[in-house]
């Protein structure tokens, strides 16, 4: 009979002395479980309702991207990396395009840069709304799901008209874009984005103003600042822990330095703060899209790119702000049409590594809230 050994804060209902003799139980959460958004497994040791510790087990979706890309030329890779994080496809294509452009020293025309910003931010809105929806659903509130999907659809339709895809866009090329945006893009995009801005307060009130929601998230799953640093956590999760970092601000790429937007952050590092950061970032992204559409210059959408995209020998590291955190690509070229090596640093991989730190000594229900507030995409973890 193993008595529970893990430290238990006094506030826990079970009480410390004179409690019933209980036995620990191993619970495999996943690989198929509704709260893990895919094939993610959590090896959890539970004692009744208390989660003593949990260890994430990943790798069920490993597809060998880093090896695959070595066999394909740059235009093909665009479509591959688009599938890593399926919620933010176009954001994944960006660092690859930037890396190749830096190696080949291609000048990207301003219109293409603006359009890239617009599409990336619209994709960020899509991604964030998706996590807004799923976080609500995980806490048992089903209404946000449907509201968020209604909003997503408006923007999704603009993206579809522009790129031809709903998830895997394959629209960025080294040197610019695949093609110019269709007629009516500006109006439709503005309409969709303004609708999001207009309805966002409703969404916030639906969840953030709810007393049960607050009780479920405030002071639950606290990831402190130091731990966030040491695990290499980035993106909305790091900003929810009070780390004020955003690649778009710190090392502006494309034309992000020309727009006004705030880096949202919150100090406590609990589920509520992570969620709050995520929700506010939707508004900031919408602001960027509005500004970019207003300043959208005319002109070509493709720089001077040779017929065969062949990066000269060298190496380059590019980092961009993916919706879920910092996405880095380290490209090594030996002058071939294919990369010699492409090391990808994906945000979800680093973010879930902090999970076991946060999950120890929580409730089983908190585990779901924490999993939901860590905003990870399985494809992005395993690649």
């Amino acid at each position, binding site marked *: 009979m193993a008595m529970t050994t893990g430290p238990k804060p006094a506030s826990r*209902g079970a009480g410390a002395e004179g409690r019933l003799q209980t036995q620990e139980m191993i619970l495999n959460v996943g690989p198929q479980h509704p709260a893990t958004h895919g094939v993610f497994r959590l090896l959890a040791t539970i004692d009744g309702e208390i989660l003593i510790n949990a260890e994430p087990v990943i790798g069920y979706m490993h597809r060998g991207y880093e090896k695959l890309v070595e066999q394909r030329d740059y235009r093909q890779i665009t479509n591959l990396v688009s599938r890593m994080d399926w919620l933010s496809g176009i954001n994944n294509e960006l660092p690859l395009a930037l890396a190749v452009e830096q190696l080949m020293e291609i000048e990207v025309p301003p219109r293409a840069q603006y359009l890239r910003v617009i599409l990336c931010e619209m994709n960020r809105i899509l991604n964030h709304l998706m996590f807004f929806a799923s976080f609500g659903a995980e806490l*048992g*509130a089903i*209404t946000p799901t449907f509201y968020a999907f209604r909003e997503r659809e408006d923007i999704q339709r603009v993206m579809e008209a522009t790129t031809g895809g709903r998830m895997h866009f394959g629209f960025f090329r080294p040197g610019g874009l695949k093609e110019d945006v269709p007629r009516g893009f500006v109006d439709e995009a503005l309409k969709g984005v303004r609708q999001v801005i207009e309805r966002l307060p409703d969404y916030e009130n639906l969840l953030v103003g709810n007393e049960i929601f607050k009780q*479920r998230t405030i002071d639950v799953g606290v990831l402190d600042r130091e731990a966030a640093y040491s695990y290499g956590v980035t993106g909305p999760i790091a900003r929810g822990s009070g780390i004020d970092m955003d690649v778009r601000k710190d090392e502006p790429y494309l034309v992000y330095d020309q727009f006004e937007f705030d880096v949202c952050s919150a100090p406590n590092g609990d589920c509520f703060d992570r969620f709050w950061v995520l929700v506010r970032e939707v508004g900031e992204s919408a602001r960027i899209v509005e500004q970019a559409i207003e300043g959208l210059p005319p002109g070509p959408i493709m720089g001077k790119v040779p017929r065969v995209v062949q990066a000269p020998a060298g190496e380059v590291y590019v980092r961009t702000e993916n919706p879920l955190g910092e996405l880095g690509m380290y490209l090594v070229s030996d002058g071939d049409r294919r990369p010699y090596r492409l090391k990808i640093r994906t945000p979800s991989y680093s973010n879930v590594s902090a999970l076991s730190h946060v999950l120890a000594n929580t409730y*089983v229900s908190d585990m779901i809230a924490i999993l939901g507030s860590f905003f990870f995409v399985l494809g992005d973890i395993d690649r």
Partner: protein
Amino acid sequence: MFDITLATWQILVIKVLVILTVVPVGALVGGYAEHKVMAHLQHRLGPMYPGGWHGWATTLADGIKFLLKEDIIPAAADRKVFSFAPAAIMVPIIMIYLVIPIDRNLVIEDLDVGLFYLLAIGSLSTIGLLMAGWSSANKYALIGALRSAAQLIAYELPIVFAAAVVAMLAGSLSLIDIVEAQNFPFAVWPPGIGLVAFLLFTVGAVAEMTRVPFDMPVAESEIITGPFTEYSGMRYIFSHMFAEMGHMVAFGGIAATLFLGGYKPIVPLRILEYIPGVFWFFGKTMFMIFLFLWIRPTFPRVREDQLQKFAWKFLIPVGLVLILATGAWVLYV
């Protein structure tokens, strides 16, 4: 008028037939209402699609889908208990309907201890949940079953207190007497007592039905569907969907009977007396069902410990004080 005399067994058969018709129809109506109310509240498109107009065939399509599913029993499960559990869940719920008066003379059995019977039989289905959870040989099912047992103990008490208040005000345990004792504006009056008792009963009923925000035992994002994780096909329908809907309609009827004046008209007008009590009863029941349905899309789920704290530290003390207040009211007012 006809003068028909029926043998006891004939009356029994008719009663059984009536109850076996009313309960599934009630559950179907509840399921249909749930589809539609939620679709309207949440901009859902799916439930508005099947069958054309207003998606009238949704419930039908759902039912057929489940009928056609394979009935899977896990290899490690305790086959007998596993197969019997849905019945153990469903039968007590059907038995609730026996004492609910639909009209002055339209009740299957007018028991002298109707209220007592109602509360006693209503909590029996938890045994079925425990059977299902234990026999499934699944950890999620086990957690769910234990959660539902814990929840029953905590939330049965507020319901009992609220019902006791009504019994004290009416001075009887027979449901017909309780309805007859209620004069407009019914038992939700007196405001300090009846209203609180009504709210207490509603909260307890939502918890007893394991619906959001108290759906910890079946929390689908945490423990899949709790005790029903391993069930499929018709067994799943009977143990979960049908039981939940049957429960909801039953609780709607109980609340209408205890607090909203049952088959009596909502305002004491002579002309309204001509409308049959059945309409008033079902109208009030539908109102309660709508209330239950409305709660679901509005709230997130509470956590297990918060749920217990809410019951033991808030609802039950409130219920105890309420009973004292009712005693004072009955004695001195």
